[in-house]
């Protein structure tokens, strides 16, 4: 599904070769500035029209409400007039869909009607994920999507993402989250892939575990 062959991006990514098949659950680990975001961007651009994309900055439109920020995931499903009317007054059908979706994300309807500028970091992150989920694609690519949530909430959201997508690729900074939830872990540092292993190997194999530790040295 995704394939990079000796891919270079100035000094941020160096000679990356990688292929990810449909159905895989992949976590990217590595120090900040190591190339996780650049790699995700490269993967996202390969088939942007089939990917639910959740960038690190969320891409929220501050003055608009949480509802509208989630609704944006499906702008392509309606004509401009419909979208315009919905901007002025939320329409019944998308409103119901989005209320249900945000209940699963742990957002209450009051937070949906506020402008996102008034929401907390964790709430904003959920709205950002909400927009990606609302795209309703088979593949989810996220850049540290649960970094502002506590471990319990983060786990719930991760499970929600898994439930709704066949293929999931996430950059994470939490090793435990990665090892507990993903089948395949890619370690990336200084623009290079340090290891690309099944989770089992990382737990069992001492050499592989050492590589994981060395990522953050």
């Amino acid at each position, binding site marked *: 599904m995704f394939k990079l062959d000796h891919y270079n991006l100035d000094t941020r990514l160096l000679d990356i070769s990688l292929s990810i098949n449909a159905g895989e659950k992949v976590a990217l680990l590595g120090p900040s500035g190591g190339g996780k975001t650049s790699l995700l961007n490269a993967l996202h651009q390969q088939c942007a*029209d089939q990917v639910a994309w959740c960038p690190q900055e969320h*891409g929220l439109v501050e*003055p608009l409400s949480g509802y509208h920020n989630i609704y*944006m995931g499906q702008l*392509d499903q309606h004509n401009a007039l419909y979208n*315009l009317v919905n*901007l002025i007054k939320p329409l019944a059908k998308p409103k119901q869909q989005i209320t249900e979706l945000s209940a699963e994300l742990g957002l209450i309807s009051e937070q949906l009607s506020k402008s996102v500028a008034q929401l907390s970091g964790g709430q904003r992150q959920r709205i950002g994920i909400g927009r990606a989920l609302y795209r309703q694609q088979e593949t989810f690519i996220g850049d540290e999507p649960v970094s502002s949530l506590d471990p319990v909430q983060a786990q719930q959201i991760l499970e929600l993402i898994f439930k709704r997508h066949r293929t999931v690729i996430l950059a994470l900074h939490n090793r435990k989250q990665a090892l507990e939830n993903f089948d395949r872990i890619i370690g990336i540092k200084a623009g290079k892939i340090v290891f690309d292993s099944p989770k089992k190997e990382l737990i069992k194999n001492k050499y592989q575990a050492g590589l994981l530790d060395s990522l953050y040295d």
Partner: protein
Amino acid sequence: MTSSSKNISLAFFIVALVCIPFADLVVYQVEPWDELARMGQGLIQPSFPELSILADSLINTVAFALLAVSGAAVLGLGLALIFKSRIVRIFSASVRAVHELFWGLIFMQVYGLSATTGILAILIPFTGIFAKMFAEIIEQQSRVPNTTLAPQSDHVSRYIYTWLPQAWPQMVSYTRYRFECALRSSTILGFIGLPTLGFYLETAFKQGQYDEAAGLLFSFFILIATIRWWLHSKYIPSTLLVPLYLTLALFALPESPQVYGSSLVQFLSHDIWPKALLNGDIFAVFAWYQHQLLDVAIPALWDTLLLSQLAMVLTGLLVLLFYPWASKVFFPKRFSLMRGFGRSALLILRSVPEMIFAFVFLLIFGPSGIPAVLALALHNAGLISYLLMRHSEQLNYRTDSGRGLNHYVYDVTPRVYPHFLSLLLYRWEVIIRESAILGILGITTLGFYIDSAFEDIRYDRALFLIVISALLNIAVDSFSRKIRAL
């Protein structure tokens, strides 16, 4: 601060230094003290004209500005959405390149001293300004929201969901600020005879009745300083208040004299073209344009460029000096007295028409480039400092950030610097445009020759020079666009 900001700033500074020996910066021996003393006395003991005259002129000033800005904002927003088109950019650049005063002089030939002249003279250049500013504000917004949308989403939906809402608060605040500018423009239009505050202000100034001039000037300050009470109300939403005012403004407009279509035709087909062209004498046409270009336009261009270059760099220095004194960031609640003082000073600087500054400086320094540079720099510094101060207050700061000078040098200034530079580069064009207004006082910029051409009823020459000044502005605009892209 990025290295390109540094280089740009340095380059402008050096060019300004090189300009100094070429500019006419002689201090003439003048004896201004009598006149200044009378001005000072007028300031201390202002007098006001009859209430009916004052009220009438105030209402006209506001009505022209309000109607013109609303129309221009709507048209400008429309143009901003298609600003990528070269034709739209050239159109906006050409209409805003011509100063309100000269639009006024042009429309006056057709519509006389009427409300139509007053409104169009502001609306047309402002449309060009809005188009450009709105397009730029939209351009500055984050692109990230767009990346999260489905690639198939249509352009209109993208605009209304991502670009416009992000840009909206800035566009509203810019429109408010523009309304203030429009009040100034509307006032200035009185200088060419329209029934606004400026008409009585100029008369009082020319007749040396400084007490009345001061009274009118104070009325004008009060009008601008109280905008936040009469235009924005806590109790009535602006979606109701603005339409209400617009309706009132329509009723308050002075009656317009009858306009005959034939005068428009006569003006467009006959008055604005050189006689030789109407006679079909090609050689004479060529000679005429050559004469106008070499003997009038080029020397005037040179003076305009030198003075505006100096004015711009001086403006930049003054802004960096002025803006912290009015900002909450440096003077929080405890120092509200200092901040209030800073804000009032900026308000006065930006609302006094350059004309008035230039008039006073002409008395002190005599007729050279100095009054023009000082007037332009002080006025524009007041303006940009105000905008920069507002920008500095909108940023988020860590609670543990430094204080005073450290905060200024390490945190605030580097963060507002790109915005500062872009305001200044944008203002460059405006400074050139505003130098036109000073031409009326006899400083030999392009505006001086345009004004004299209108006075001599030589519309052919006036039009030619207006086109030249528009071309100059377009050139400067595209140059400043390139610099900002660095």
